[in-house]
């Protein structure tokens, strides 16, 4: 076996790829993050908001983009594709074609002058064709890398861009380049492509301008989109009054060969409807035409309910037959069948909720990498571990593994990262960049000596602000001992120059007046640090994004403003103090609470990577819920899987299993937890760096439908047991869905029950084909590829009958017989049947212990009692508390493969901590002046992160910042009545000095 390589190739720079890359890079591996497009960000970067929190997509994605872009261990390879893969897990050789970009990324500063002057226009793909871009362009303004690219197909070669580029970044003679990357593992995250609804000609897409796709609508909603966030009809720019969404366009459609469900469309349609209503100043009617509303995710059902109840969005269960345009008004007439009645309704605008298709180059990619695809062209995966492809060492995440939403993609991504890590765990840290810095100079006793560097940014600043004048002005400011201006302050040679000047003039503070600190502060901090100064002795004045670019026609005023901003930055610089980044040591041990499939998987994944694990299970044996699962829809044997998993747990001596045990106390913080385990009558104390919560969930014990009264009324799980034990004999079976779910008490959907019902129904048909099976449902939520089994069930003659809350089926005893009465919606009639068995699809309910565990760990729960992750969209397995993770049913109902992915994800996230000897924390945190602290506890109460604890001092209480938990938001500082607590780098004095300086002009 060849030497292993401590590097991973991640294919696809969408949110999944980025997450996988960050996890790997953070835990000591080199990552090549490859994307076909010129910048990373994927589809998420196009979205306006995200469900169910309505977060601005760009706001939450951009920090990840930036993190990936500047991570020393992540090498971005954009505008590239894979040509071939050789080798074996641990040691692959990947041939990558880096396509000519015609712009030198080393030199491009992303200033955008080229695009402004380019005379050629092209369709803007990022805006889904609703706007134009230049032939030289950057995908979107926040793109990473913000390196421009020439669209060679459109470029006419006029040479303008090269001429106007002062950075000299344009290279017309650029050529494709084939490089060979040695990597230990490969993660595929190429995402998906939207279904092109032109095929569905009955919907008139592209013929009628007011029929748009959901992703186009996303751009229409976006403030950075073509219409500036005002919802307009493309046909005439009027704000629509009445819009409709049509679901399942290109999904669940056997006609066009896409039988699967695209999993995310229902939710995004609801979200878009809500956002549209919020964006439209006037009244907007929203209608969603659907087949089933598949709001199966965590808190999705609530969102769906809110959409109906709060926002008044109308849901119509109907398949739309066709759309016609009124040629005069360009309104659209939707023809559909509701309750067997043909209906017609006019709308201003129609949004087609387009499904997901495999990415455009999926086949090529599959060939190059050597993996198999499923019949739709998505990646073929292991049904129990959907992050594994058919090729060892190659993992998959995100929509390429099957349509899914963002949190699931992110969880899969971290999971795939864990899988990759375990292959090359031995190589951890071997290929990462380690940088040596000169010793830090002690400047605490010196008078401030400030150097000011003012950037022309080509003509971006210099064209509007009189930079030499500002420079001269800067020289007159107190403590400024040196000032100069540069063509590009961010260029490599200027970095060298800044370092030289720091030494030459013995500078101990540096101010750069240029663009935004959000993108460039890290670069300059690095430079300052390289010159032997503490990196926090640096301040920026944003005279481009917030001055020259927005006052292009007022050069005088812009120059004055630039002076004010420089003065303010200098004033702050005078007050800057060096900050230490606090560190905490890490105990490379994990505590996993819960010994079900999630807990075991997480433990095994961590053990594979060489970490010690304490696995605590309350019951007497491992396996959790899996112990009672005998079949899977996809046909795999779950019991065998469980036995193998238990064997694996036992195989690792580094996994300490505590059965019949309970964690009773946890203290400490990330890297340094201390816990007590009650085990075998005694208390065992352990020390560990992270905690993974995998406490699982349980089946709801129904109170409805005579459950527990009549033995013929059982749950799905009991049915499964019955079938498994060969005890099933019934001629008529009625299954009732959503028992204990989607109701007042428990508004959420339990996600798995529809599939479970279909699984068991199919099993019944397999062993007893003549048995009649009725399934009473609200919505059939067989999302993703599970939709196929729904189709199969329909074909097998299983009868699906829709009910709603107003007309639930009723079960009663009629003599010896069980009678079930239901409303037949098609016939509009009440019908009775006499089932031999009534099977209740009981909800998945949180583990009753959750509350205890949550209190112990100081982590939150959702209203219904599942654990609440740090961020529903992008941090699905993290808690807001660093060092604590969750996975599996503890997070919410989900099928096994998703639990496995999440477990792997939790392991990967945990590994980012465990892999470090010490954690370096952000230096911008709060500190307490104990002399001033009155112990009033206000800071403790306002801190969103629980980063403040009260400690005793001289008989009283004083606040103490837990450095590992503080995020530096400063909320405490502004709340503190005595100003005893102060966020570093944004101290009251610093900000006040800025305020005064700004107004001293």
């Amino acid at each position, binding site marked *: 076996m060849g030497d292993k390589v401590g590097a991973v190739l991640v294919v696809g720079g969408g949110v999944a790829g980025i997450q996988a890359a960050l996890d790997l890079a953070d835990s000591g591996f080199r990552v090549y993050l490859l994307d076909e497009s010129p910048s990373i960000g994927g589809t998420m970067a196009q979205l306006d908001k995200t469900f169910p929190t309505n977060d601005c997509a760009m706001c939450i994605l951009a920090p990840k983009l930036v993190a990936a872009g500047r991570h020393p261990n992540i090498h971005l390879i954009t505008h590239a594709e894979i040509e071939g893969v050789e080798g074996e897990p641990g040691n692959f050789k990947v041939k990558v074609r880096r396509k000519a970009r015609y712009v030198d990324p080393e030199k491009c500063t992303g200033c955008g002058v080229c695009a402004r002057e380019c*005379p050629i*226009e092209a369709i803007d793909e990022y805006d889904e064709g609703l*706007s134009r871009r230049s032939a030289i362009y950057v995908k979107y303004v926040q793109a990473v890398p913000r390196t421009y690219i020439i669209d060679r197909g459109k470029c006419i070669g*006029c*040479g303008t861009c090269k001429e106007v580029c002062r950075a000299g970044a344009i290279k017309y003679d650029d050529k494709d380049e084939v490089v060979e990357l040695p990597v230990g593992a490969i993660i595929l995250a190429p995402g998906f492509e939207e279904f092109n609804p032109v095929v569905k000609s009955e919907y008139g897409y592209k013929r009628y301008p007011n029929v748009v796709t959901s992703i186009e609508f996303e751009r229409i909603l976006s403030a950075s989109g073509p219409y500036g966030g005002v919802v307009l009809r493309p*046909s005439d*720019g*009027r704000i629509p009054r009445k819009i409709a969404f049509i679901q399942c366009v290109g999904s669940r459609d056997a006609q066009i060969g896409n039988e699967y469900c695209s999993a995310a469309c229902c939710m995004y349609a609801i979200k878009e409807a809500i956002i549209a209503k919020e964006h439209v100043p006037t009244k907007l009617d929203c209608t969603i035409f659907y087949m089933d509303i598949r709001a199966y995710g965590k808190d999705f059902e609530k969102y769906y309910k809110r959409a109906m109840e709060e926002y008044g969005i109308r849901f119509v269960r109907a398949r739309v037959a066709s759309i016609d345009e009124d040629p005069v008004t360009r309104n659209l007439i939707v023809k559909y069948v509701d309750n067997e009645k043909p209906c017609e309704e006019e709308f201003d605008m129609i949004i087609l909720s387009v499904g997901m298709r495999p990415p455009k180059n999926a086949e090529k990619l599959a060939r190059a990498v050597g993996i198999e695809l499923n019949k739709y062209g998505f990646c073929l995966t292991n049904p129990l571990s959907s992050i594994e492809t058919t090729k060892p060492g190659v993992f998959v995440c995100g929509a390429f593994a099957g349509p899914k939403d963002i949190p699931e993609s992110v969880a899969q991504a971290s999971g795939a990262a864990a899988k990759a890590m375990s292959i090359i765990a031995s190589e951890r840290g071997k290929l990462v960049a380690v940088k040596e810095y000169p010793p830090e100079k002690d400047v605490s006793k010196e008078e401030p000596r400030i150097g000011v560097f003012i950037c022309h940014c080509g003509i971006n600043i210099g064209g509007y602000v009189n930079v030499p004048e500002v420079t001269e002005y800067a020289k007159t400011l107190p403590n400024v001992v040196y000032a100069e201006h540069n063509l590009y302050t961010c260029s490599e040679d200027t970095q060298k120059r800044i370092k030289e000047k720091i030494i030459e003039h013995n500078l101990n503070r540096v101010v750069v007046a240029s663009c935004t600190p959000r993108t460039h502060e890290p670069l300059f901090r690095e430079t300052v640090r390289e010159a032997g100064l503490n990196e926090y002795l640096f301040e920026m004045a944003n005279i481009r994004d917030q001055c020259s670019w927005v006052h*292009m026609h007022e050069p005088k005023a812009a120059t004055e403003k630039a002076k004010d901003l420089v003065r303010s930055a200098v004033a702050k610089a005078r007050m800057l103090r060096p900050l230490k980044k606090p560190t905490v040591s890490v105990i490379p041990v994990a505590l996993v609470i819960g010994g079900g499939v999630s807990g075991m998987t997480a433990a095994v994944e961590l053990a594979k990577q060489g970490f010690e694990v304490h696995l605590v299970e309350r019951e007497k044996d491992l396996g959790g819920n899996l112990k009672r699962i005998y079949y899977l829809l996809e046909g795999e044997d779950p019991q065998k899987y469980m036995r193998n998993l238990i064997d694996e747990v036992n195989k690792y001596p580094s996994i300490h299993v505590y059965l019949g045990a309970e964690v009773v106390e946890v203290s400490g913080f990330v890297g340094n937890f201390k816990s007590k385990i009650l085990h075998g009558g005694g208390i065992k104390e352990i020390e560990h760096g992270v905690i993974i919560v995998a406490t699982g969930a349980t089946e709801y014990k129904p109170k409805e439908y005579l459950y527990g009264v009549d033995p013929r009324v059982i749950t799905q799980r009991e049915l499964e047991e019955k079938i498994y034990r060969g005890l099933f004999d019934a001629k008529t079976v009625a299954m009732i869905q959503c028992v204990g779910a989607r109701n007042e008490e428990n508004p959420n959907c339990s996600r798995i029950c529809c599939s479970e019902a279909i699984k068991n129904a199919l099993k019944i048909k397999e062993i007893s084909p003549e048995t009649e099976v009725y399934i009473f449902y609200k919505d059939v939520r067989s999302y993703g590829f599970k939709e196929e089994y729904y189709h199969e069930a329909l074909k097998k003659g299983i009868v699906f009958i829709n009910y709603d809350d107003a007309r639930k089926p009723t079960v009663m005893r009629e003599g010896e017989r069980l009678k079930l009465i239901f409303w037949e919606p098609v016939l509009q009639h009440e019908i009775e049947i006499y089932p031999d068995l009534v099977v209740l699809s009981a909800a998945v309910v949180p583990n009753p212990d959750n509350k205890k565990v949550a209190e112990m760990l100081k982590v939150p729960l959702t209203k219904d009692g599942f654990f609440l992750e740090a961020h529903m969209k992008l941090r699905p397995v993290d808690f807001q508390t660093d060092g604590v993770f969750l996975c599996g049913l503890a997070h919410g109902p989900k099928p096994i493969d998703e639990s496995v992915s999440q477990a792997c994800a939790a392991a990967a996230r945990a590994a980012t901590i465990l892999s470090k000897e010490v954690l370096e924390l952000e230096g911008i945190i709060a500190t307490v002046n104990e002399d001033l602290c009155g112990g009033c506890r206000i800071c403790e109460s306002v801190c969103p992160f629980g980063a403040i604890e009260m400690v005793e001092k001289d008989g009283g209480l004083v606040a103490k910042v837990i450095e590992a938990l503080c995020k530096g938001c400063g909320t405490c500082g502004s709340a503190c009545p005595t100003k005893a607590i102060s966020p570093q780098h944004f101290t009251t004095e610093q900000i006040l000095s800025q305020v005064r300086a700004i107004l001293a002009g």
Partner: protein
Amino acid sequence: MEAGLRIICFICDWAFPEWSIETPPNVSVIQVKCIGRLDPIIILEAFARGVDGVIVVGCKWPDCHFIDGSLYGERTIRLLKKIMALTGLETERLRLEMVSPIENRSLSSIVEKFIDDIKDFGPLFKGKEADKELLFNLQAAEQAVTWSRLRMLSGRERKLTEKVNVYGERISQEEYDRLIEEALEEEYIRSKIYLITKGKPASVEEISRRIGVDSFLVLQHIVTLRRKGLLGVDRIEGYTPLYKALEVG
């Protein structure tokens, strides 16, 4: 004398010796150093001010005193004719005559021929309602040729079609014409939108009615104009956003 058409004759300093410049009284001769000097704005402005015909007389290659200045001028006239066609102006009202000093032609005969050829068109402004439309169109055309896109493209026409581009390829004249015509049409409509909204805020539909362009296209152009910082939403009235041209310094 009967009222003749108003004619402006732009003539290159070198095309005719000064002594030989003689033209009828209704023709104003404006001498420029080279017809390469003729910014398209100048000629459009001439029409906008009510000139009925413009004849440009320059030096035939290779007699141009500025080597290829007249060739640039020739391209400008070609572009102008395309623009005129868009504005609804008879393209014949603009003529380019290339002369060589050694041909020994007389300017007056060239001009007279021109006047004769366009006399049937009559005056440009007929004193009717349509004049306003034409004037507006001309102003829009002027605006369009002020923006950098057309100037950038037309300024590089010779480089691209006669020599090679930065990739060492030559762009065929047809391909170039297609590009410039596309750009021209777009910029022309955008100019109109810009001018209308400069006056007072207008909605997509108002603009569409005013300029006879499908509102669907108008909105697309508004998107582009907004991206370029030339247009902004002024306010929303009921269901209709009104757009206003932004002052550009």
